[in-house]
């Protein structure tokens, strides 16, 4: 897409999709493949990692955070590259970290990560803090149709979303201290691979899943009112986000169709000027005005597509995240309740069980507190994000109309001036 901000990360490699059979591996790990082998690989040298590559977006991220005390870690995601191996083709993104935190051995890191690495990180963070609210990852698949998966826009949108995800983690006082976050930011590729293998194995993860399913089947008995209120809110909120997402996409569609017609409109005035004499100037003038308004419309559509549309979509995903958090909290409580029930029915071995019950009750309390704290944080972020996106949209719309206004006013002025000149020089009309 042209007309983008001056972010150097936007210089994406050309994406072509001659879909030869061997390219079209739909990797389990959900990375985006199907790029041509001949794409030039962009070289990001470590030396120019002196500044975060998109200072504007960094500042924007930072501006609306509630903690205005000094941020001590900056993370950027940029520079998508295609990688081809014998088995698969996938995209990696450059992740640059600058930090003054003491836990980090160095103050600058640069690594390359693929989508499945981000997914891994998210799962690890969720495991460690099941009731903290994280910003969502971009989606695995885009359902809208094949074509959109292979274009620059998709990669760009995904990259921005990954950037936001990492930054939200970095800004989170608890999540950002998680060991796996540090490893994600700093480990070389082979280090990360080996670390991943060390994590809870397949069987252990299966065990967790089984317990979670069992707990959710059981259901929680006495959910505190405030969490029920949260659930109801998130439900409503989610519906609103879906509606707004749809409305905004519809607006983009209508705008594009309007632009299509507008592009045919100007040329007719130019055509007409070809058969006239006195009317040539005003006709050409109108044609030119319409053409310039076309450009302004194109810019406006671009802005909408790159800002409000992705933001609303993110918040649709957000509500799923939050609902998942609330479910996990419920499961923790359900597990605790179940253990309590078991204790009530047991006659022997009560001591061991009592310890277990206490542990689980503590777990519930921790989970609840974590969630309560994070809820406010999430609401604050949501308000900032939504406010910023709509304010920006409104600003852009004002800008659009101001541009068009200037175009037509200058036409009118030049026409009036020309006419006055003619009248003064004795032409009658």
């Amino acid at each position, binding site marked *: 897409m042209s007309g983008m901000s001056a972010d150097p990360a936007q210089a994406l490699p050309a994406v072509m999709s001659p879909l030869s059979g061997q390219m079209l591996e739909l990797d389990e790990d959900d990375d985006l493949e199907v790029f041509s082998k001949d794409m030039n690989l962009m070289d990001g040298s470590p030396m120019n990692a002196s500044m975060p590559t998109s200072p504007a977006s960094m500042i924007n991220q930072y501006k609306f955070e509630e903690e205005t005390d000094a941020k001590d870690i900056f993370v950027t995601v940029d520079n998508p590259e295609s990688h081809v191996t014998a088995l698969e083709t996938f995209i990696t993104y450059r992740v640059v970290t600058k930090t003054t935190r003491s836990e980090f051995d160095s103050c600058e890191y640069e690594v390359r990560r693929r989508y499945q690495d981000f997914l891994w990180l998210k799962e690890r963070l969720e495991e460690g803090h099941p009731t903290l609210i994280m910003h969502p990852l971009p989606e695995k698949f885009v359902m809208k149709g094949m074509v959109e998966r292979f274009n620059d826009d998709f990669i760009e949108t995904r990259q921005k979303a990954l950037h936001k995800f990492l930054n939200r983690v970095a800004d989170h006082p608890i999540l950002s201290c998680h060991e796996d976050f540090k490893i994600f930011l700093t480990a070389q590729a082979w280090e990360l691979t080996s670390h991943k293998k060390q994590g809870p194995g397949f069987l252990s993860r299966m065990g967790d899943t089984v317990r979670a399913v069992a707990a959710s089947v059981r259901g929680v008995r006495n959910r505190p009112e405030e969490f029920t209120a949260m659930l109801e809110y998130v439900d409503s909120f989610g519906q609103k986000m879906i509606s*707004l997402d749809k409305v905004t996409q519809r*607006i983009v569609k209508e705008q594009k169709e309007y632009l299509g*017609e*507008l592009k*045919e409109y100007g040329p007719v005035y130019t055509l007409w000027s070809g058969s006239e004499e006195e009317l040539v100037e005003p*006709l050409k003038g109108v044609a030119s005005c319409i053409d310039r308004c076309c450009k302004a419309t194109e810019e406006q559509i671009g802005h909408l597509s790159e800002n409000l549309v992705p933001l609303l979509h993110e918040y649709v995903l957000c509500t799923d995240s939050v609902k998942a958090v609330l479910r996990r909290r419920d499961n923790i409580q359900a597990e605790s309740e179940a253990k309590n029930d078991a204790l009530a029915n047991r006659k022997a071995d009560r001591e061991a069980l009592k310890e277990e019950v206490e542990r689980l009750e503590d777990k519930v309390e921790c989970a609840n507190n974590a969630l309560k704290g994070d809820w406010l944080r999430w609401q604050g972020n949501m308000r900032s994000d939504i406010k910023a996106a709509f304010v920006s949209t409104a600003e852009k*719309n*004002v800008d659009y109309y101001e541009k*068009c*206004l200037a175009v037509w006013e200058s036409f009118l002025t030049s026409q009036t001036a020309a006419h006055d000149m003619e009248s003064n020089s004795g032409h009658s009309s």
Partner: protein
Amino acid sequence: SMADCGSEEVAVIGNTDITDEESQDNKNNMMAEGSCLLRKMEISVAEAEKRTGKNAVNMQETYTVYLIETRPADSVTEGHNPVPDSLWRRYSEFELLRNYLLVTYPFIVIPPLPEKRAEFVWHKLSADNMDPDFVERRRIGLENFLLRVASHPVLSSDKIFFLFLTEENGWKEAVFETGFLAKSDSRLKALNATFRVKNPDKRFSELKHYSDELQSVTSQLLRVRARVADRLYGVYKVHGNYGRVFSEWSAIEKEMGDGLQSAGHHMDAYAASVDDILEEEEHYADQLKEYLFYAEAVKAVCRKHELLQYELETASQDLASKKQQQEELAAGTVRTFSFKGMTSKLFGQETPEQREAKLKVLEEQIKEGEVTVTEKTLECEEFVKNAWKDIERFKEQKDHDLREALMSYAVMQISMCKKGIQVWTNAKECFSKM
């Protein structure tokens, strides 16, 4: 955008203080002066009304009538506001008037009527002839037509036109009494001429070509404009959904509620604003349409020229061939092929007396032919002179009117942009307060 009438005289008519006789005298005098009617008379198509009645085949029909009001130009003064004279006319009567003018003044570019049926309609606009918006725009178009005729240096002094404005009953009879129907050229004659004329005036050929281009480009413009209007409507109306969703959403928010609610109102206002914007643009479309139809009127003048030119050429040709025959007969040779010639060859030569008789007939025919050619030549020259004068007038009027139309289009765009700036500035403020 009315042309200047040029006459300084102002007669007082319709004054309630004078007698009927005096009033009629005044009217007659005014007609005789041949000066621009519009200087003396205020004309307007003030209202439109639905009527039902029985038509020619005794079926019930619904139709619209238009109220034509006339008043002396200077009758409205301090404290004196006389009631105008008025009568009702329906569209078909306007058509009859125009057809009369077309036949009676074939060298004039006759102002067009507003369209009979709604065309170049974008989807939301009704194509129904009974639709109030259509009727209103037609009322304006009919008034425009009358004003154009009333300000025309030649047409404004036409008696039938005057009666159209002033005599409700008996007008139709008066029109038919002029015998204009008999004078109208058949379509076939006109078509014939177009293809067979050998030496059309170059200016008229160019003019016809220009008219074709004007027709083509204005109809293209009207079509595209209608599509653009359609799309613009869609864009604005979809924003109304923001209003609805914001309103619902504000109910579950505490801090964001007020901002959302008021932003929603602005979105509703934005969506609603497109109706007025596009209604205004219809006036621009009507101005373009007028010149689309004017192009046809210009072509009618060109066709008349072709017809006259063709008749002249035919008459000249006839004369030439008769002269040829005369020559041959006098010289005794037959150069032109004729059955007579053949038969005389077959059945023997003619007697001198027979030849003498033939020559005499030819001489008469040639004399008549010469008169015809002279008449036709004069007719052609007169036509070209008068037509070209009106065409020059038309060109100036067209350049002036279309330039103004384009400027008024720019004004409309400016107004639309200003409204947009206001709404989104307000919305931005509401969003900032969220």
